[in-house]
């Protein structure tokens, strides 16, 4: 009977299928388990600090009063980093993908990738020992010329170890991530769409605005989010560069603190409830990162219909 050949299957091929699907399932579950484990650890360890009476927490006014200034500080530092790094990274990526001659482009891409390989402590040392000193005259200028803006209120820090310096160092650190990812995405733009724009009489820049950037939009958002993730969580560079203190609106005075640096600086000598407090701070950072990523997902899916994936 020839009909039996439909029901019998090649054993080896099926086994491969099963192994592969089991492996991917295991990998997927592992990620969830790790994430869940981390979240669980953070919550359990943070609980004592969250329920403790306010006077036992550092500062004596409860956990919320302790955490919110450094949440703001974290967001400010990350925002500065993003504001500086995103346009530069997209510009560099566009230059590499669409403007530079091929030889220069590959060399430049290599150098940018190399930036990502530098350890953060080196960035921190560079920021603290070199950038802070060099940039303080600029802060003085800002204070005397734009001092009426709260964010540039004087007197500027003499050492230059301010949240703005930390933000600039962070921006250099996240630059390679955003650049590499967006460059790859820009290179993926279908030739078809680029030619469609050019054939309508678009200049190169107009072609980029019409075809490349809209097509790469979800990828740009993802790349920026990865950069933001690193900026939010970066510890060493901020700890070295920033002369921390209370929350201040001025970006060019010493002061402010980020969650990651706060944890790193205080954890070695901490004991008892102080440990719980720092872990609770870590939980807050975890939640912020999660929230930011969910917003990014939402931004991407909101335009799904127009993404070009259909």
């Amino acid at each position: 009977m020839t009909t039996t050949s439909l029901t019998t299957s090649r054993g080896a091929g099926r086994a491969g299928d099963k192994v592969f699907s089991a492996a991917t399932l295991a990998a997927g579950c592992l990620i969830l388990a790790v994430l869940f484990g981390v979240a669980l650890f953070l919550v359990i360890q943070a609980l004592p600090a969250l329920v403790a009476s306010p006077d036992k927490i550092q500062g004596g006014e409860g956990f919320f009063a302790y955490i919110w200034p450094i949440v703001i500080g974290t967001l400010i530092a990350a925002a500065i980093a993003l504001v500086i790094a995103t346009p530069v990274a997209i510009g560099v990526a566009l230059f590499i993908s669409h403007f530079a001659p091929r030889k220069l482009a590959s060399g430049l891409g290599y150098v940018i990738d190399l930036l990502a390989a530098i350890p953060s402590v080196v960035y921190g040392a560079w920021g603290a020992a070199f950038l802070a000193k060099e940039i303080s005259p600029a802060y003085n200028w800002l204070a005397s010329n734009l001092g009426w803006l709260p964010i540039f209120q004087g007197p500027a820090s003499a050492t230059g170890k301010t949240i703005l310096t930390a933000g600039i160092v962070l921006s250099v650190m996240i630059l390679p991530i955003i650049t590499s990812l967006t460059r790859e995405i820009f290179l993926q733009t279908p030739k078809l769409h680029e030619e469609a724009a050019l054939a309508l009489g678009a200049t190169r820049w107009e072609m980029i605005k019409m075809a490349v950037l809209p097509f790469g939009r979800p990828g740009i958002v993802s790349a920026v989010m990865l950069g933001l993730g690193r900026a939010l969580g970066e510890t060493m560079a901020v700890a070295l560069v920033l002369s921390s203190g209370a929350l201040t609106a001025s970006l060019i005075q010493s002061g402010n603190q980020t969650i990651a640096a706060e944890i790193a600086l205080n954890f070695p000598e901490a004991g008892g409830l102080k440990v719980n407090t720092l872990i609770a701070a870590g939980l807050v950072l975890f939640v912020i990162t999660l929230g930011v990523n969910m917003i990014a997902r939402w931004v991407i899916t909101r335009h799904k219909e127009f993404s070009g994936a259909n």
Partner: protein
Amino acid sequence: MSKRIDVKDLNVYYSKFLAVEDVNISIEPKSVTAFIGPSGCGKSTFLRTLNRMHEVIPGARVEGEVLLDGDNLYGPGVDPVTVRAQIGMVFQRPNPFPTMSIRDNVLAGVKLNNQKMSKGEADALVERSLRGANLWNEVKDRLAKPGSGLSGGQQQRLCIARAIAVEPQVILMDEPCSALDPISTLAIEDLINELKDDYTVVIVTHNMQQAARVSNKTAFFNIAGTGKPGRLIEYGDTHTIFSNPSVKATEDYVSGRFG
């Protein structure tokens, strides 16, 4: 709104490789001219030199002249961007911008020229262009939807609407039906027939029947062998090319003996 094209002694190179050699041709306004020939004979390459789109490929260059009503497209100081705004192009595969709505796709080229346009004017232009591309009735209720949601044939007509919205002098079509089914192909061919009342239309096609159906004049391109440059073998009235060609190679090709 339609101009003639005269090509004189045109050679097309990719870096050092001579792809198309010594083309002389005069393309009449308000008519359809078809380029036929086997794969790799340089007809698409030649078509792309007519609006300087071949320059998008690194290393591509031409020698010779392409005159649009007497103005050399390759003259000193001529901006390829201006050339392309006057000579529209429709590609082999439909390529509406996936990130734009149907309406924005039609207006894409017009917006480039920075013309300030009221919403009413824009609406009128969208309708006129889509009607011109025989697409209006199918999409008038979903102008805000993405162009990529249309069928292949509709997408190709959207691309034609986008091209005619800028009111070009010439429309170049690079195998516009090769990715489409017969019904959609018929719709495009009908459209080409209407377009020639207003525009100079040049179409590259693999499909000889299509050339015979839509064109007034036909140019046959061929290559002597791989690695050799493509040449214009014969050019004349479509009827003559298909019924009584003067060159043996043309006769062999149109009668289906090779290619």
